[in-house]
């Protein structure tokens, strides 16, 4: 068998496979070169699990959530398959990050490999497109509101923004048309683009060969063996480990599924999945007119730089030590992305933890009564009890029924918990000029009331109600006294009741110190209509010292 041409086994597909497997590997190609293969393997995992999920999923806003629930609860291995799809998506973003960083620092984007790089960057955008469109499909609260935020960001683009929003939504509002659009994008259009780009990406990789590290572009390349078996072994091992982690996470945690999307809910705080935390954080830093900078311009510039990189940097040098500018720029970009993402994650955690401050509440007595306060359970109660019917949409900023969009800045944890347990004991009914509707007693258990409280305490609008530097706990009796005098001078009792004195026109203040937070008292006295638009409470234009004294007095009313 001297001539390979005579061997029938060396034609067609087998020849093609040999061609791939016997690709010569330059010296120095090793573990960092496995990331691309891991991504390819994860694409296969996503195709398989996605195909499976589509057997049960229904892209219709009336049935989507129910079908996902069915997959989770009724279908054999349903929770695992969906979990794998979820975590493999996250793994792809992580691996893309490593893959791009490796290519960048190795200088592998340089001529003649510019097209490998450009199709690679296109694939990055396609994968983020998958993440964005896939996110909506379960049609739960998170899906609905995170997508709404995403679509609204698109609306910030000058001139075309408004049209883009309509096209993405498939109409004036988000609904079943949005869902079927995203489904088609996610399972038909994007996969076609993906296959096309992956094919070309691989074609160019094979055309130009792997990039050996630590050389100039025009240096002669030394070879050390073929792709099979050594490099394929490394690929297989890393792929195996990554997939094992994905399966482990899927089995341990599963993919999250919140309550069914309720478009009327005004209290839900949407947070994107972790890989969009960086962008999310950027948007928080750049408010107002700067928003378009963070949402559109900066990411747009970043993508443009990535795509044009082979043409901007024509230096044939690939050794990092000779590319200080690129090293510094790339490291800085990575640092910023990692920091923003970590910051976004940290703030999310702080918000969640703040909500559940007394994390473990042990009820004295029997062991069975021990429970953990969980704001997620509270959020579920909020939906089940339809709290939003009165306190949600339309009540924003109102006093009766109170809007809860900044409940966490307003109420004291202990008062809210006690009130939710027995609303009619704590505040029997509203009197005077106020409407007669009153809070129903839902007969919540202590656990339920505290879960609900911890959820409500997570609802904060710190931009409207910033924390204050002043510590009223340290206020002396002189201050309290002058506060009491001020309350008399300004005629607070003309509307508010304190004990036996005053009128029932505004809310009673007899125990306002145990109910409301000091900083809320400060803000409401300072500018009532800013927090409660259209309120009957006058803005008395007090100076800061006066407000501080008033709060010092009010907080003693318990």
């Amino acid at each position, binding site marked *: 068998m001297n001539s390979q041409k005579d061997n029938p086994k060396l034609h067609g597909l087998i020849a093609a496979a040999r061609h791939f497997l016997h690709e010569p590997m330059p010296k120095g190609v090793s573990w960092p070169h496995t990331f691309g293969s891991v991504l390819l393997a994860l694409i296969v995992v996503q195709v398989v699990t996605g195909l499976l999920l589509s057997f049960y999923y229904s892209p219709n806003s009336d049935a989507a959530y129910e079908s996902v629930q069915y997959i989770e609860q009724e279908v054999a*291995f349903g929770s695992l398959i969906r979990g794998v799809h979820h975590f493999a998506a996250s793994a792809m973003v992580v691996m893309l990050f490593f893959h791009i960083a490796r290519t960048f620092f190795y200088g592998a984007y340089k001529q003649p490999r510019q097209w490998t790089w450009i199709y690679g960057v296109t694939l990055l955008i396609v994968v983020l497109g998958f993440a964005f469109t896939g996110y909506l499909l379960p049609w739960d609260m998170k899906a609905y509101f995170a997508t709404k935020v995403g679509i609204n960001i698109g609306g910030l683009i000058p001139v075309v923004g408004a049209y883009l929003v309509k096209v993405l939504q498939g109409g004036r509002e988000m609904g079943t048309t949005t869902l079927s659009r995203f489904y088609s994008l996610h399972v038909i259009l994007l996969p076609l683009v993906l296959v096309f780009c992956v094919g070309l990406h691989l074609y160019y990789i094979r055309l130009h060969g792997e990039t050996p590290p630590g050389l100039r572009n025009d240096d002669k390349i030394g070879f050390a063996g073929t792709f099979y078996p050594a490099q394929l072994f490394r690929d297989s091992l890393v792929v195996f480990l990554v997939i094992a982690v994905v399966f482990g996470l899927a089995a341990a945690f599963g993919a999250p599924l919140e309550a069914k999307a309720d478009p009327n809910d005004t209290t839900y705080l949407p947070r994107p999945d972790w890989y969009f935390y960086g962008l999310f954080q950027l948007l928080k830093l750049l408010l107002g007119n700067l928003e378009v900078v963070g949402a559109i311009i900066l990411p747009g510039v970043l993508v443009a730089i990535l795509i044009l990189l082979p043409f901007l940097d024509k230096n044939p040098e690939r050794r990092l030590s000779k590319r200080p500018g690129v090293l510094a720029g790339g490291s800085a970009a990575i640092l910023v992305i990692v920091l923003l993402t970590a910051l976004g994650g940290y703030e999310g955690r702080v918000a969640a933890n703040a909500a559940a401050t007394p994390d473990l509440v042990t009820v004295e007595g029997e062991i069975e009564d021990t429970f953990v306060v969980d704001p997620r359970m509270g959020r579920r109660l909020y939906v089940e009890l339809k709290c939003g019917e009165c306190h949600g949409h339309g009540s924003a900023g109102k006093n009766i029924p109170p809007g809860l969009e900044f409940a966490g800045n307003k109420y004291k944890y202990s008062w809210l918990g006690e009130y939710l347990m027995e609303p009619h004991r704590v505040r029997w009914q509203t009197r005077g000029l106020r409407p007669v509707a009153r809070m129903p007693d839902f007969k919540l258990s202590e656990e339920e009331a505290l879960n609900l409280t911890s959820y409500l305490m997570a609802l904060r609008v710190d931009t409207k109600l910033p924390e204050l530097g002043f510590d009223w706990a340290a206020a002396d009796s002189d201050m309290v006294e002058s506060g009491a005098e001020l309350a008399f001078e300004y005629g607070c009792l003309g509307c508010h009741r304190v004990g036996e004195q005053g009128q029932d026109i505004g809310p009673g203040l007899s125990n306002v110190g145990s109910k409301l937070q000091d900083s809320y008292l400060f803000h409401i006295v300072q500018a009532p209509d800013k927090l409660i638009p259209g309120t009957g409470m006058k803005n008395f234009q007090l100076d800061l010292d006066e407000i501080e004294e008033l709060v010092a007095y009010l907080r003693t009313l318990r």
Partner: protein
Amino acid sequence: MPWIGTKTDTMVNQDLPRRNFFKHAIVVLNSLIALALAVPGLGFLLSPIFKNEEEIWIELGPQSRFRSEAPQKATFKYESTAGYTRKVRNSFVWILPDSSEALVALSAVCSHTGCNVAWNEGEQLFVCPCHDGRYATNGEVVSGPPPRPLQELQVKLENGTVFVKLLV
């Protein structure tokens, strides 16, 4: 993989045990990955097989309603579930003339291609409209393509009320 590893392997000198380990490890690792996807995947697809459907008993009414000379059509509504959807459907069974103490209920579904059979008063036969299958009063095939008699359904009596078990 016999077609791999012939000529080009001699391109470089590598020690054979190391290469052999790589080759075996590649097969083992990738087989494990394929298995991890295939087993749950297959279970996921075949899930309907493993599902235990619960019995559905339909209330047909008091026993006194079924005392006629000819087979009697007993119509009913039931809630049919398909995955995550529920629908109320109309259906019926045939109750045979009461010859003894026990009531006999026949499925109206023809054993041939599944059309609903009707009682033909003149011929005293159940006739299927699709391919002219004919069944006697007791459900036995008289003529036509049906391969089996009409299926008899389980019937139970509770305090004088007739229940029939739905075929699922």
